[in-house]
């Protein structure tokens, strides 16, 4: 039997009862719209976190003393002194996939300018640190290797520190501050970066030569950490292995000994955050999916009512020559049409609300083709699945009884 004609018949049936068709579609519309919007929000926040972490310095490998911090538990003091300059030298010398490397010595205290003071950490680093953390100089300059060799008392300030010690808009290059009573000359200003994905202010920062911080500020001989960046994102795992091998040799660890340091790559931090957002996204999508199922049940419900209501019509169609298959196909097409039209409206609504959320709430939002294709596929399936039983019931009616149905 002519499929085009059956399609026309099904379409005609829906058009003659637009209001009911629309009401039936409502469940599908809401379901699809929410699936698209939820997935878009989920994708968006996942992408924005990835971007943020990338901005913090991609290809980064962070080496810290002590075994892996488990749930933030603090290690004993002895454990935290295992990284030393010879480790830095060894990695620099022996790891081919490490592109840049900087020691890290941290100090905490007060920065003072005249009457103003501001509690802030001071990070002791070398010149590679700028490229590893993707920091840029806004004015002035970075310290030189000579200044590192002489433990010169020079520093660079982030915007938040400048605002609190000098006032907004002031260029402090050439001026001096005191840090924990030690005078420092400001030689450079860092380009502001704003808040990172974890809510920390990236401009609340002072950089100084690591030798200066080590000898003059905290008086230690070990390092608090070593920052490195790999030559390429793709060699991260390889580089990590190289660093671990080098350090285990340096620390003279036996095969059975655990690492007394930990090496963390960008990837792991990323994965940590990604998995949280991933779980959230899946949860939201499941909820939206449930509403799609409810929409499908709505279709099935209405189709049953429709079949009962149109019993006489079905009997007549059979009397003038429609076979069971013709009736089944007609009602299946009706169910699928309702699903697809509802799905289309839902897609438009979902995409529309994603745009609104992006422009008004300024949440990150990414609409993927995948979610749209998925929605249409699910809609078609819903139409066929939930329309099948009512359509079968219609096709099995006896024309003699049907045509006399009251």
């Amino acid at each position: 039997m002519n499929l085009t004609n059956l399609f026309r018949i099904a379409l005609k049936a829906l058009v003659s009862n637009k209001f009911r068709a629309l009401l039936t579609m409502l469940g599908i519309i809401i379901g699809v719209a929410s699936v698209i919007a939820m997935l878009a929000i989920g994708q968006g926040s996942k992408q924005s976190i990835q971007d943020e972490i990338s901005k913090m310095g991609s290809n980064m490998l962070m080496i810290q003393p002590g075994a892996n911090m488990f749930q933030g538990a603090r290690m004993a003091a002895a454990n935290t002194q295992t990284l030393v300059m010879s480790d830095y030298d060894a990695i620099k010398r022996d790891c081919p996939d490490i592109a840049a490397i900087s020691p890290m010595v941290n100090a905490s205290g007060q920065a003072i300018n005249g009457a103003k003071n501001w509690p802030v950490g001071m990070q002791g680093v070398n010149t590679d640190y700028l490229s590893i953390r993707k920091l840029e100089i806004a004015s002035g300059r970075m310290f030189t290797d000579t200044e590192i060799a002489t433990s010169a008392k020079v520093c660079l300030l982030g915007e938040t520190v400048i605002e609190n010690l000098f006032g907004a808009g002031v260029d402090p290059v050439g001026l001096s501050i005191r840090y924990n009573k030690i005078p420092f000359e400001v030689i450079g200003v860092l380009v502001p970066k704003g808040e990172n994905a974890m809510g920390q202010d990236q401009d609340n920062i002072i950089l100084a030569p690591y030798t200066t911080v080590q000898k003059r500020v905290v008086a230690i001989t070990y390092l608090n950490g070593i920052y490195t960046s790999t030559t390429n994102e793709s060699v991260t795992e390889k580089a990590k292995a190289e660093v671990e091998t080098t350090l285990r040799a340096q620390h003279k660890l036996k095969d059975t000994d655990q690492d007394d340091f930990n090496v963390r790559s960008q990837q792991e931090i990323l994965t940590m955050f990604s998995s949280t957002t991933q779980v959230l996204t899946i949860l939201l999508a499941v909820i939206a999916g449930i509403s799609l199922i409810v929409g499908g049940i709505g279709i099935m419900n209405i189709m049953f009512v429709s079949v009962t209501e149109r019993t006489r019509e079905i009997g007549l169609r059979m009397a003038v020559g429609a076979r069971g298959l013709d009736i089944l196909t007609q009602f299946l097409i009706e169910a699928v049409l309702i699903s697809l039209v509802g799905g289309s409206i839902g897609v438009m609504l979902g995409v529309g609300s994603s745009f609104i959320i992006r422009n008004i709430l300024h949440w990150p939002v990414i609409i993927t083709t995948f979610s749209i294709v998925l929605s249409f596929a699910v809609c078609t399936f819903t139409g066929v699945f939930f329309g099948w039983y009512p359509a079968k019931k219609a096709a099995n009616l006896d024309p003699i009884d049907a045509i006399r149905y009251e």
Partner: protein
Amino acid sequence: MSDIINANNLKREFFVGTEHVLALKGITFSIQKGEFVTIMGSSGSGKSTLLNILGCLDTPTGGEYLLDHFAVKQMSKNERARLRNNKIGFVFQTYNLLPRTTALENVELPLMYNSTVSGKKRREKAREMLEAVGLGDRLNHTPNQLSGGQQQRVAIARALVNDPVIILADEATGNLDTRTSYEIMALFQQLNMQGKTIAFVTHEPDIALFSGRSIVLRDGRIIKDEKKIKIASAAEALAALPKEEASDYIEKE
């Protein structure tokens, strides 16, 4: 051999719960091309069952039924559907038009299930049939915009659209007033004069006066099968009805 219908010892039994009902107990008759036959009987006589079998909606449990020389008893459900689509036109008491659908689309319906007919030809034929029944100016009216008589005309046009070998009418005037009934019977007689074979089931004797032959059923058997010598003209009967005017029903002051 211009037999349209050959019924030979038709039997039909039903099992309703624990009851065993013999609706037809051996019906034998033939209908030739061009006949106008009424099938009469009271309720329970088996005339509805007979009509269902003649219309290929049901199969006899005994005996043979030939429609245009096709043996229907051995046919499958789908084959019977095809046969109905090609050879039979139904006219029902309750018109059975599709609501919210135009007269033209209603008449097209049987041809929609015939894939050999193109859309253009289908529309043309439907228009032609509607004009033949006098509704050429109401092609786009929906049933709720048509009177009972007009709806029945649309149903008759639908029954003609597939060039059937026989029109089966089931109490076609049952829902119409006297005047409209005569109008419809006049139309049937006109179609019969143009060569259409008609089998008309009814329980009203004055409607049977318009046919050329009457078969009467009682308790599942034919008790009378006679051709008329004198056939009444529905058109004349219509003209003979007293003219009714609205003023007849308004109380004179």
